[in-house]
């Protein structure tokens, strides 16, 4: 090869082709998908909590994409049915995740509907599950001697409670994050199943 231009043009063309296949065609196929029936837009508090979820990097350890029963026992574990693009219409940025260092959270709001549970778990995961390796997030909480009337006091077992009888109170960021987690509920029926990866389906004649 002796010329720069043909090399550059062909290299560009190959990438343009890949972009057509992996970026543009999928976008054409499901960028216009309607939200699934039963999927609600996030409220302001939930959206703020979602921002916490993203900037604290929760999605590096938790996926939000249950697999189909033909591939894995996700449904049996209570993580929910396999998802489709219609379940993610309000997600920006996406948080599908690539790791399950922690469990899948697509339906954690339906599986764990208690605000108190989430607040305790965020303050100190080991107060709930001794072997947990999830980070504690004490900076989402403050310690108060005399919580006010509007303060949400977090139930913490004595072992992890602050000394001298002070109380753990949730900051707004913890309440928002919990609101987001509680909103994660895709238990309604799936829309547009043909838009997800059916490569593991055992039923023929699709």
């Amino acid at each position, binding site marked *: 090869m002796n010329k720069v231009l*043909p090399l550059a043009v062909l290299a560009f063309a190959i*990438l343009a082709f890949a972009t057509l296949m992996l970026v543009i065609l*999928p976008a054409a196929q499901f960028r216009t998908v309607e939200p699934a029936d039963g999927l609600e837009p996030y409220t302001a508090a939930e959206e703020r909590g979602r921002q916490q979820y993203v900037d604290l990097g929760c*999605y590096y350890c938790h996926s939000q994409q249950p697999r189909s029963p033909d591939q894995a026992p996700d449904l049996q574990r209570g993580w929910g049915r396999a998802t489709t693009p219609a379940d993610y219409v309000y997600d920006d940025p996406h948080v599908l995740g690539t790791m*399950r260092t922690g469990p899948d959270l697509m339906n954690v709001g339906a599986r764990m509907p208690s605000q108190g549970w989430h607040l305790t778990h965020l303050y100190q995961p080991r107060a709930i599950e001794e072997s947990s390796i999830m980070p504690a997030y004490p900076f989402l909480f403050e310690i108060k001697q005399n919580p006010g009337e509007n303060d949400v006091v977090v139930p913490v077992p004595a072992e992890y409670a602050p000394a001298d009888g002070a109380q753990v109170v949730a900051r707004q960021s913890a309440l928002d994050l919990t609101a987001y987690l509680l909103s994660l509920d895709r238990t309604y029926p799936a829309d547009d199943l043909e838009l997800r990866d059916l490569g593991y389906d055992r039923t023929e004649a699709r």
Partner: protein
Amino acid sequence: MSLTIGTMMALSFVVSLIGLAFLIWAVASKQFRVDQSDAEVIFSGAEGEDHAPDDPTSFGFQRDAEPGEGTDTRHRKLIFALIGFGTFWLVLGSIFGVIASLKLHLPDWLTGSAPLSFGRIRTMHLNSVIYGWLSLAGIGVAMFLVPRLFKTPLRGVNLAWGGLVLWNIGVAVGVYAIATGWTDGMEWLEIPWQVDILLAAGGACFAAPLVLTAINRNVHHIYVTAWYYLGALVWFPVLFVIGNLPIHTGVQGATVNWWFAHNVLGLWLTPIGVGAAYYVLPKIIGKPIYSYRLSLLGFWALALFYSQVGMHHLIGGPVPTWVVTLSVVQSVMMFVPVIAVAINQHVLWGSNLWAFKQSLPLRFVAFGAVMYTLASFQGSMEAVRAVNTVTHFTHYTVAHAHLGAYAFVSLVLFGTVYYLMPILTGRLWPAPRLIALHFWLVAIGFGVYFFSLTIGGWLQGLAMLDASRDWLESMQLTQPYLEGRSVGGTLMTLGHLLFAINLLSLVFAARRSTDAVDTATPATSAS
């Protein structure tokens, strides 16, 4: 919306057609023809002659060698600065990495503030080593090799200095932004797009001098290393701009995310590593690569197949079957370019083991080249659905990522830096034993890291697929393997500190005699 997408599709189709026409023209007019004799353009002697092995550390300087042949002082300092700043990011990024690793088995350590929480430290690690270390050191190596390959001085050295400043500010602000929670929130694309503008401007300042140098070349044939570099110069800007446009949402954002992230590996980091290995291996040994024609296949097959593998990150996910399957097929097709490169590189150093034993830089580069073959084979297998269903969502993937980005690209870069610095500065490494120690620290450290996470990740995946076992078991059983990873990562980090010390020792060794070198050689020996 449909009009926009239709227009874009038509545009891509036309671009593909033009590309095809170019290919036909280029083949017909023998633009892409290569001969085995072309493989010898990197040697200074006549064709077919025996060439002396070229590695000052092991074999002494070549007879008529001048320090930094074809470079002037500013250019030499530029290369040194690029590699120096790259090494700074390597050491810093490694420390972030070790902290993140420790946190996975010491979850109550350093929990007091958000910037130190796992999700942020882990991300600061990735962005420091990818955009700081690998990109800067890779560009530094390119700034050294491209003028040599084209036998002409580097053009636009001042512009490249500007690029260095902009790029470093971009990475620093980007990593700081992640620490404070300002992120675009997609893996590999976390640096806020506003900050990415700095990186894009800096990247353009790096690209222009390299392209200008290529246009002003004084050689008839473009050597294979430069194909990879020129390809990367076309690919990375396109990827970076499209990936960072703040318009992608929902599942569509996920497809762009993984199209981008895997192409950063395939069309940016891989060309940096393979290109350097294609130069350093034959140059140190003094013999051309095994089959130069095969390298042509290796290059174009890489471009064609690697660019479409990204969706294997979404196997079993909420994206259409066809696009996932396309990426699985292309991932398996990657055996073609990888075997082509493997034959060319491994036959060469494998049949010249005397050089492997004597030359430390060669040992790094050859080890890295083998890791490229293994990482790619492993990657192709991981994309197969039956394997992916076990390894996806586990630490197995993390081990694989480090086999590619670390054991392959980083080791090739270490070796290339150890090779080029004496040539650039005219000074020998003051303590070659520390180079050997660096090699063994990172080789053993990486071995511990890789096997820990590979075994732990596989067991984790099997446990997660077993409905009779509680999910919690799949997490608990990884504990000893995560601790093993911290041990391996710490050894690697110590190796990186040694690398930084070696570079510093050369600075101080060089500083004492810079004037002497400059006056002893005919002023700025541009050819």
